[in-house]
């Protein structure tokens, strides 16, 4: 039942969409991965004020649906807020989309798409 083994067997990496500090910190932890050339794909995206929403959406789609080797997508909550529609409609089990707090934006459980589902299920 649910997801077959093939759906997550090959997923090894974490991906991150975040501001510079979050990405730097997570890369320091060693999650950064660049695939073999010729199509050297990074598994992280640095977002600042100048980054277009479409770029974020594209990266999000790329990490969630196109790439099959990513197990967890980490996204800063304030960035998730910018593409809220996409994040909320993504309900697959793999990869797991995790909203994380950033340095400048403290974590707000009210906005989290998973916690929203939890609350809706328990009728609060």
């Amino acid at each position, binding site marked *: *039942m*649910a*997801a077959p*083994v093939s759906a*997550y*067997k090959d*997923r*090894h*990496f*974490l991906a991150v969409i975040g501001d*510079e*500090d*979050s*990405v*730097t*910190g*997570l*890369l*320091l*932890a*060693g*999650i*950064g*991965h*660049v695939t073999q050339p010729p199509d050297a794909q*990074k*598994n*992280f995206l*640095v977002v600042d004020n100048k980054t277009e929403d479409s770029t974020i959406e594209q990266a999000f789609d790329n990490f969630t649906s196109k790439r099959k080797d990513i*197990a*967890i997508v*980490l996204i800063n909550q304030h960035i998730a807020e910018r593409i809220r529609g996409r994040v909320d409609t993504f*309900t*697959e*089990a*793999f990869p*797991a*989309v*995790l909203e*994380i*707090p*950033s*340095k400048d934006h*403290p*974590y707000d*459980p009210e906005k*989290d798409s*998973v*916690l929203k*589902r*939890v609350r809706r*299920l*328990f009728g609060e």
Partner: protein
Amino acid sequence: MSGAGDREPVFPTRQSLGAMKSKLKGAETGHSLLKRKSEALTKRFREITRRIDEAKRKMGRVMQIAAFSLAEVTYAVGGDIGYQIQESAKQARFRVRTKQENVSGVFLPQFESYTKDENNDFGLTGLGKGGQQVQRCRETYARAVETLVELASLQTAFVILDEVIKVVNRRVNAIEHVIIPRTENTISYINSELDELDREEFYRLKKVKNNKQRDNNAAEEERKNSKRRGSDKENDQEPVDVLGEQEDQDVIF
């Protein structure tokens, strides 16, 4: 009335009655099993939601600490190291693998983090200044990511369980509200049809018996009558005493 409700298209025979009865029994067993499964899953589900809630809070704290240690690094190095780090990332050192956990027949994947020690992209980072801070920051972030991985497993389990519980509950309800009533309807329909047949058969037998009896009676009557008629012929006259005192009448020639 049995014919009113929804029922299966079967012929009302004893054989299909037996089949329906075993079907009803199977449906009831299945219903109780599925109900228990759903309860077990829901219990698990509630536990997971509670743990998600806790883990999210913990994540908030851990990420704050990690961000602070990164700020220390920036201060110690005296410049932005973000660019350098982004450029030097080549192979992931921190990876996850998935293993499965079986909860009432549902496989929940769990992420497990592991590090590939041979990959060390940042060997030279901070070699100039603040090496110790960088090292500490890396450890802090590694711990933070472990928390995140844990949270991700919980979240994945949450998503999968949610889906599975929905499916199971749908089945439970289908059995409870569709299959069982329909089978019961079919059984009572078959029963009433069979009773109807029984009554018909009984009536027919009675009729046959009555007819037979009537015929028998008539025949008996007939026989009696004919017997009486036959014996009457003889019994009408007194037996003649041939050797008695009676004189024979003279025979006149």
